[in-house]
């Protein structure tokens, strides 16, 4: 996997909001390979959302380079004549437009892709169905609960069928049952469509359940301080492997030395 051209990459990225006096991110290098499901863990305020914004091209890095799937001809293979977007982001705050109905919020990214009214409507409804909200299609966002709004944000990103799906704590506001079913739904979509997913979460168990690789962002300025590849044995809840990884991740997030030793501990570029 490490030889293939990554779908998207951050190369020694630094980000400062004050012209280089203080950095939020520094020396961040991350390769996202096609088909990976990467979970990004880190303490609150460390810079996870900032990293996603940089990857999405919404913030220009102060240092280093960003390569997204749009810049990469190889990654665009199989895109059906402009009816999709290369990448999409689920914002941490759902960020819906209050003047658009739920359906039209979901269809937002479909506009400008050359789809007709009916196609847009159908694709948006399909996405709403995936997140269990098709009956809310005609409602105004302010009539939704926080969790419902968040699911609309997920539907809006899914409906553009992106190669790279960036999700910023998408299931944070949900009850455990809805959360579980959306996690399963997301895994199913990921397996079927071979999307590449970068998923920010605070929840170590969620990260272990979903991801093929977990990356830890910590420190100030933040850098990638730990990385674990997740295999089948670590995905079995309450198995020793699961518990050991959870402990290692907790330590990495807290900024302590990795107690688990070296095997997955990343220092060089992978």
């Amino acid at each position: 996997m490490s030889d293939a051209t990554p779908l998207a990459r951050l190369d020694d990225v630094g980000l400062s909001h004050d012209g280089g006096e203080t950095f939020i991110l520094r020396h961040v290098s991350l390769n996202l390979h096609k088909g990976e499901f990467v979970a990004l863990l880190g303490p609150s305020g460390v810079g996870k959302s900032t990293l996603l914004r940089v990857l999405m091209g919404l913030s220009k890095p102060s240092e280093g380079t960003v390569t997204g799937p749009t810049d990469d001809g190889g990654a665009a293979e199989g895109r059906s004549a402009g009816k999709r977007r290369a990448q999409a982001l689920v914002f941490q705050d759902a960020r819906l437009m209050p003047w658009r109905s739920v359906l039209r919020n979901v269809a937002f990214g479909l506009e400008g892709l050359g789809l007709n009214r009916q196609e847009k409507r159908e694709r948006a409804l399909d996405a709403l169905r995936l997140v269990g909200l098709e009956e809310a299609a005609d409602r105004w966002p302010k009539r939704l609960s926080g969790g419902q709004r968040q699911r609309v944000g997920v539907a809006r990103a899914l409906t553009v069928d992106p190669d790279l799906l960036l999700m910023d704590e998408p299931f944070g506001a949900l009850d455990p049952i809805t959360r579980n079913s959306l996690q399963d739904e997301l895994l199913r979509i990921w397996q079927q469509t071979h999307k590449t997913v970068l998923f920010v979460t605070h929840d170590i168990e969620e990260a272990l359940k979903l991801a093929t690789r977990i990356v830890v962002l910590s420190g100030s300025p933040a850098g990638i301080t730990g990385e674990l590849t997740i295999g089948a044995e670590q995905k079995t809840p309450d198995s020793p492997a699961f518990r050991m990884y959870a402990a290692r991740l907790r330590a990495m997030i807290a900024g302590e030395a990795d107690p688990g030793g070296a095997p997955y501990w990343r220092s060089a570029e992978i």
Partner: protein
Amino acid sequence: MKAALSRRQRVALSGLGLVVFFGGWEAAVRTGLLPSGMVPAPSSLWQAWLDEVHGGFWQQAILDSLSHYALGLLFGSVLGALIGLLCGMVPVLDAFLAGIVHLLRPVPGLAWVPFAILWFGLNTSGATFVIAISVFWINFYAAYAAVRSVDPELYELASAFGHGSFLGRLFKVVLPASAPGVMAGLRTGLGQGWMSVVAAELFGVPGIGARMMQASSLLATDVVVVYMLTMALLYAVTDFLFGFVRLRVLRWQA
């Protein structure tokens, strides 16, 4: 605190207020408390109105004023809102126009009358110009403020979903997000427009204002009041009609 009044109670009370107002006025004139040469009795207004209608003056004045009003409102609102939106969106334009705006803003619409007469003459164009200017500023500032208060996170959202271009931001974010502010400006302009109509016509452009001026020079106070009430009625109608447009455009705020 007292319980809130129901809608019906409020309407009944405001009707009562009007009855007391006109009744008190009538009584004051009849008892000689108010000199009838200075203040017309409300009961004389009906006849004065009928005379104006029979002579065709009333209809003509309304038509003339409405055309000034509509044209002035159209130019003033469209230009004001448009330039306000652009200034709000384009910092370079904003900075470039800032000095000019500060220079021209304090000049009241009425102060433009000499130029209106000079440039356009005592005609529809001249009146339209004066009305447009006073409406312009209201809409300019309303639109400008509305754009400046658009949540910047919505621009980020637009960029993330392929609408980060100037036109994308304009049509997908700025226009819908600033619609409430722009509508509020339009509505204020709707009222301000009627005030300017009188001002613009007092100088002799035919219309309600000119007719009032003629009547007052003949001390026909009843006719003056008839046109004052006409103005109030026209404002009420335009504001009422605009209410529907507003409700329709801002359905999402309900």
